[in-house]
C-alpha cells in the first residue's frame, strides 16, 4: 500500500469512509452495449461507530452502493476513501485486488440476505471456520460461533446440519452469524432480515444493534421501516442513483415517507 496511501488528514477524524463523486453504470454488451445507470455522483460520509441506513424504493441504488464500496461492483469513477485500523487513509478503488481482498478479510465485511456457505459442512463448522479465518484460535472460535448462533436463535439441534437443508430464515440467520462472529470494523448489511418472522427478526436486530454498541460502524439497507427506526443513527434516502436527503434518522424518515417502503 504505497502509492495508494493518502494523507490521513484526507478524512476528518470522525469519518470512517467517504465516497466522493462515485458513479456506476452497467454496460450490457449483449444488448447492443446498452448502458443502465446505477449510481450518480454519490458523496457520502460514514461516521466512525454510527449506524447509517440507506433508505429508498427498489432500484434506488442502495445495494449497488454497498456493492461498490465492497468492490463486488466495479465503479466507473470517483473515490472511496477509507480509514484503516492502522489509521491510514486509502482509496478503495485504487487498491490492488489483493490488498482489497486482505482488507475484506480483516476489516470490511459484507453480509447479504443470501447464504453462501461451503457445501457439506455443518452450521457450527461454517461459522467457526469463518472466525478461524479471521484469526481467532480454533477453541475460542468454536465458543464464539456457538454464542452467536444462540443469539440469532439457531437451535442447537441444527448445528451439525448442512446449511443447504435449512429454511430460508434459518439460512439467513446462519449467514448473519457467520458474517458477524468476528465483527468487522465496517459492516455492510444488505437486507439481512428480509425472510424472518417477528421473533427471529427481533433477535437479529438485537445482534445488529450490538455491533455499534461494541464499536463497529454499520452501513445498511433494510426494507423495513421498523428496523430502520430501531437501529439507524442517521438515514440517507436514495432515489434514481442519488442521495436526495441525509440526516438524523427521525426527521429524515418523517419528511421522506413516500420514498421509503413501510
Amino acid at each position, binding site marked *: 500500500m504505497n502509492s495508494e496511501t493518502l494523507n490521513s488528514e484526507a478524512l476528518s477524524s470522525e469519518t470512517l469512509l467517504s465516497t466522493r463523486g462515485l458513479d456506476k453504470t452497467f454496460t450490457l454488451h449483449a444488448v447492443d452495449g446498452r448502458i443502465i445507470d446505477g449510481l450518480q455522483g454519490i458523496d457520502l460520509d460514514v461516521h466512525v461507530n454510527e449506524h447509517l441506513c440507506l433508505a429508498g424504493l427498489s432500484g434506488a441504488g442502495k445495494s449497488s452502493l454497498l456493492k461498490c464500496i465492497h468492490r463486488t461492483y466495479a465503479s466507473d469513477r470517483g473515490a472511496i476513501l477509507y480509514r484503516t485500523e492502522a489509521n491510514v487513509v486509502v482509496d478503495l478503488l485504487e487498491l490492488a485486488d489483493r490488498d482489497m481482498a486482505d482488507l475484506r478479510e480483516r476489516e470490511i465485511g459484507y453480509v447479504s440476505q443470501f447464504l453462501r456457505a461451503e*457445501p457439506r459442512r455443518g452450521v457450527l463448522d461454517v461459522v467457526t471456520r469463518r472466525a478461524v479465518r479471521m484469526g481467532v484460535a480454533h477453541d475460542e472460535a468454536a465458543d464464539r460461533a456457538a454464542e452467536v448462533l444462540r443469539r440469532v436463535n439457531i437451535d442447537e439441534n441444527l448445528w451439525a446440519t448442512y446449511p443447504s437443508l435449512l429454511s430460508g430464515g434459518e439460512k439467513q440467520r446462519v449467514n448473519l452469524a457467520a458474517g458477524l462472529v468476528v465483527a468487522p470494523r465496517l459492516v455492510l448489511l444488505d437486507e439481512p432480515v428480509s425472510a424472518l418472522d417477528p421473533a427471529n427478526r427481533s433477535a437479529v436486530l438485537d445482534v445488529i444493534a450490538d455491533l455499534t454498541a461494541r464499536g463497529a460502524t454499520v452501513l445498511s439497507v433494510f426494507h423495513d421501516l421498523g428496523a430502520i427506526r430501531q437501529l439507524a443513527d442517521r438515514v440517507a434516502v436514495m432515489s434514481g442513483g442519488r442521495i436526495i436527503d441525509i440526516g438524523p434518522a427521525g426527521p429524515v424518515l418523517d419528511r421522506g415517507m413516500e420514498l421509503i417502503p413501510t
Partner: protein
Amino acid sequence: MNAPNEWALLVEGLGKVYGPGGAEAVPGTGPDFGRTVSPSTGAIVGCWDIDLEVVPGEALGVIGESGSGKSTVMRCIAGDQTATTGQARLRSVDDGATNLFDMEPSARRALRIDQLAVVYQDPSEGLDLGVSAGGNIADRLTAAGWRNFGQIRARAAELLARTEVPLDRMDDPVGTFSGGMRQRVQLAKALANRPSVLLLDEPTTGLDASVAAGVLDLIRDLLDETGVGAVVVSHDFNVIEMLTRRSVVMHHGRIVEQGLTDQLLEDPQHPYSQRLVGAARG
C-alpha cells in the same frame, strides 16, 4: 498491504504457439479477431501475453471456456509443454532469479518433486494407476531423498489420512479406486513434499456433484492449512468462487479481464466475461 514482491509464483509474457514459427503467428489472433489460428502461418496461438502472480496462501482462478487457453497456461507453467516465450519464476528457486523456462529439462522435472506440484483432471496423469496409493506417495518421497521405509510408510499414511483416503485401501492399486478417491490420492501425492506452489487443473470436473463437493472441501482446507500458493483452472464458477479471491478470464488465448473473483462473477466488464457468466448463471 503485503510487502511488495512477496510472490511465490510469477509469470510474465507467457506465450505458446503450436505449429511452425513463433511470435509471427500472433498478429491477427486473439479476442479482437475471434480466432486462435494465425491467418499468416496457420499455427495455433494457445496463449499469449499471459501475466500472473500468486503470493503464498493465495489461490488465483483462471476462468474460460474450453479452448480459451487456460490449460495451456497451466501446462506451460508446470513444464508439461514448452513455452514459446516469456518467463515463470518460483520464489523457492534461487529466490526467483531463475526463469524456469530456461532450465535444463531434468532440473525442470525435478521441480515437480517438491517445488511445483500439479493436480490434473485426469488422475492417470498425476498417478501411476497400477501402483498402490501408498506406493504413489512413496515414489514422490523417495524422489525427495526419503530412505527409511518406516518413515515413508508413516508419512504416506499421514497424508492419506489427511485427504480422507481409508487406510485399509493404502496398499490397493489406485486403478481400483473411485474417481473421487483418486483425486484425494493425487492431492496427497502433490502435497507430499510441501511444494510452494500447487497447480490445480479442473480438479473436480467429471466427478459426481456430491463427490466433487467433498474434494472441493478438502482442497479448500488444504490451501488454508498449507499456505501453498495455488493456481486453479476451472470452467466451473462454483469451484472458482469457493477456492479463489482473485481470478483472470481467458478468451482466445488472452487474458481479457482480471479482478476480485466476486466482482468478475457479479459485475463482469468485458463483453466476453459477461457472455460467459451470463451463460452459466442465467
